[in-house]
């Protein structure tokens, strides 16, 4: 453990972790389950094109979410673009309402669908769309609301559903972080017009990369199935939008199916890790692990632990990023810059200022999680934070001298 300030890796000391710890779940056990399902695909010589393993995954996920329709797709981003293009086809506008404090890919998914993002600010506690702001933003130009569940909260889901219904606007949930959580005792999946989930390796269900859409709308499900396969085949009474290859392959589906039975255990382990983080940070004023303020209503899978760094903690979020990265922690700035000001936004999407979004984007930090982050690792991290707090004057003074930092 660190004894002097010079022991910190940022000043040339030995890093706390020999291997960089990832923020992602990266769960892939048991390996033999995966290989045996791959063998089915191999023996059947069927590797893609809506194969039996993808169909099995779709049935399993539909049951998990309690919905009649699940459509597996190449990845969640493609799923969102497919949905937005489909929903816009029967409307006149071009705007999709989306939270500013969200993943930097969202403006791209919206532009891919031929739509324009209309960024709206978020609630400071739930980090999800502020319903009052959404109500003001809806216009005849709105083709959809793209609501995003945060890592710790479903937000004002019911109010959004009511508002969207009243105003006749389709509501799509980006539920990537909602997977494994519950809202009023139920799994997400049947909210709004449709919900989109991810099978990226860093998420709760590892399908290498991949995603799926859930919906209760049978016609929409049919149209999406046609769209993901180059709009081949016709859906009665519907003129198709441009199709694409939005298919999930059998090998990715095999991995997702192999890890699905492990889900309850993975969520339990995540919760234990979250609680350990929380207890380790109990004596670190100004460091707050995000958690729901309505635990009686909602729960989370804790697939991602996000730390808010604020006063009286003596270091900024960016200082913490530098210090912790040097120690071998794969920490990342969370939604920073936010989607509403992302440097990588398409050239025709201007940056805008949103007070709550910008405030949160300066203080949020993703912590390592998943199988690679053991209880002992979390304990070491807690001890490091304690050390940083106790030696904040010396550390801050040395960090102010550029030559002192490695």
């Amino acid at each position, binding site marked *: 453990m660190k004894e002097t300030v010079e022991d910190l890796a940022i000043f040339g000391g030995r890093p706390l972790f020999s291997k960089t710890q990832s923020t992602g779940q990266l769960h892939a056990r048991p390996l033999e389950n995966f290989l045996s399902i*791959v063998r089915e695909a191999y023996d059947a010589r069927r590797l*893609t094109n809506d194969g039996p393993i993808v169909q099995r995954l779709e049935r399993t996920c539909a049951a998990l979410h309690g919905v009649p329709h699940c459509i597996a797709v190449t990845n969640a981003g493609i799923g969102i673009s497919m949905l937005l293009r489909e929903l816009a086809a029967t409307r006149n506008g071009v705007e999709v309402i989306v939270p500013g404090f969200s993943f930097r890919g969202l403006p791209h998914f919206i532009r891919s669908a031929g739509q324009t993002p209309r960024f709206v600010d978020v609630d400071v506690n739930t980090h999800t769309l502020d319903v009052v702001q959404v109500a003001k933003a809806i216009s005849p130009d709105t083709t959809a609301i793209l609501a995003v569940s945060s890592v710790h909260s479903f937000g004002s889901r019911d109010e959004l559903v009511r508002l969207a219904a009243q105003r006749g606007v389709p509501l799509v949930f980006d539920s990537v972080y909602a997977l494994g959580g519950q809202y009023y005792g139920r799994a997400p999946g049947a909210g709004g017009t449709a919900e989109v989930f991810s099978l990226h390796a860093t998420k709760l269900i590892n399908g*290498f990369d991949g995603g799926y859409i859930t919906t209760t709308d049978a016609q929409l499900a049919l149209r999406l199935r046609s769209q993901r396969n180059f709009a081949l085949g016709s859906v009665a009474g519907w003129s198709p939008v*441009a199709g*694409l290859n939005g298919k999930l*392959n059998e090998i990715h589906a095999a991995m997702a199916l192999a890890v699905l039975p492990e889900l309850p255990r993975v969520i339990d382990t995540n919760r234990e890790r979250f609680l350990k983080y929380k207890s380790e940070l109990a004596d670190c004023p100004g460091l707050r692990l995000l958690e729901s303020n309505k635990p009686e209503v909602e729960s989370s899978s804790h697939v991602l632990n996000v730390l808010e760094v604020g006063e009286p903690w003596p270091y900024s979020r960016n200082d913490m990023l530098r210090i912790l990265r040097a120690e071998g922690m794969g920490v990342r700035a969370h939604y920073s810059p936010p989607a509403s000001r992302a440097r*990588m936004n398409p050239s025709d999407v201007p940056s805008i200022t949103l007070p709550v979004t910008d405030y949160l984007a300066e203080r949020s930090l993703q912590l390592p999680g998943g199988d690679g982050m053991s209880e002992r690792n979390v304990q070491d991290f807690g001890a490091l934070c304690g050390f940083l707090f106790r030696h904040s004057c010396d550390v801050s003074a040395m960090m102010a001298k550029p030559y002192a930092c490695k």
Partner: protein
Amino acid sequence: MRLQDLAAFGGQPLFSELKHTAQMNLPEWSKLKNTLRGIVERSYFTNHGPLVNQLEQEFAKALGVRHAICVSNGTSALMIMCRALGMRGEVIVPAFTFPATVQALTWAGVTPVLCDVHSQTQTPTARQVEACITRRTTGVLLTHVWGQSAYSDDIQKLADAYALNLIFDACQAIGCTHLGHQLGNFGKAEAFSFHATKIVNATEGGCITTNDDHFARCFRAARSFHETPDDPPGILRMNGKMSEAQAAFALLTLEEFEQNLTANHDRYTAYCRELSALPGIVVGVYSDSEVNNYQYVNVYIEAEVCGLTRDELFDLLAAENIICRRHFSPGMHRIPPYDSMPQQIGRTFPVTDRLCERIMQLPNGQQVSIEDVTRICGLLSEIIALAPEIRAYHQSHQCLG
């Protein structure tokens, strides 16, 4: 053979399992298993992993091209290529192509303008392309149909004269050449497919090749949301990443490319030999002076000679578990939403229509043996001999209906 011996008329199907047109080449199970095991042990599943990097290097080397950028599928490759080149307005594209060629343009925010093709080359001539150019045209996207080059000096000169981006859909063209040079080196960039139906199989997968360093940076930026200091600003991005599992399949089948090509060629040659005397069924010919991957065994059905239409033959073969394909039928000018676009209204595509009516692909790939080819051709011969009876049967049932 009697009519009732055909599966469509109650007989036993010729094959107990399906014979597909797709390549579906698989590596040895033990090699595949070990590679997949390695991915899990490394805990590196996607996001530009080591196998994807290796595949990019090996594919670039195989094609003799500076950059190969692997992506999630061939359609993603086309979409990323169009977006990252900043194409706007209208792009000219053949009507005789797979839907993804045209759909990728729509997803890139570009208006596709369909162009008919030449009856021999099945790709647009420079003159046909020029007739489609308007003030809004910014590019030309041509398809190397059946791995046969769509590039020509005339097309390049036309693109240069009008300052148009010239790019290629090379999804069918892995390992194929133009005047001895590997496709993948022409125009500003080319898009390949590693779909399971292709000779290199990543289950799904694709790749963009280019010799231009700047374009390569644009393509790499556009396929993910991972930021690097080299990224050109303002590009429309997507999650177009290839996973390590996809790369594993592709690397193992790329390793077996030569043997799979030889096997394709052997089957193609067997089809040519067996069908040479059959009236009204003409096997598509590949140039001896170019390398082709022989993924596709095309036959052109002359209904007036063999007595049956392409679709009648297709259905009769399907009943025998011989699953042919009818690429690219119907032509893109007949597929919504492109059939009603103002750019296409009032125009005709007679060559595309004629091709779409006659062409059919016969089974090929690892699961089809030379003996299977002989049996398929033997059956075709029997069916043609029964054509008058089949036709009479259909006519009598139509009358009854």
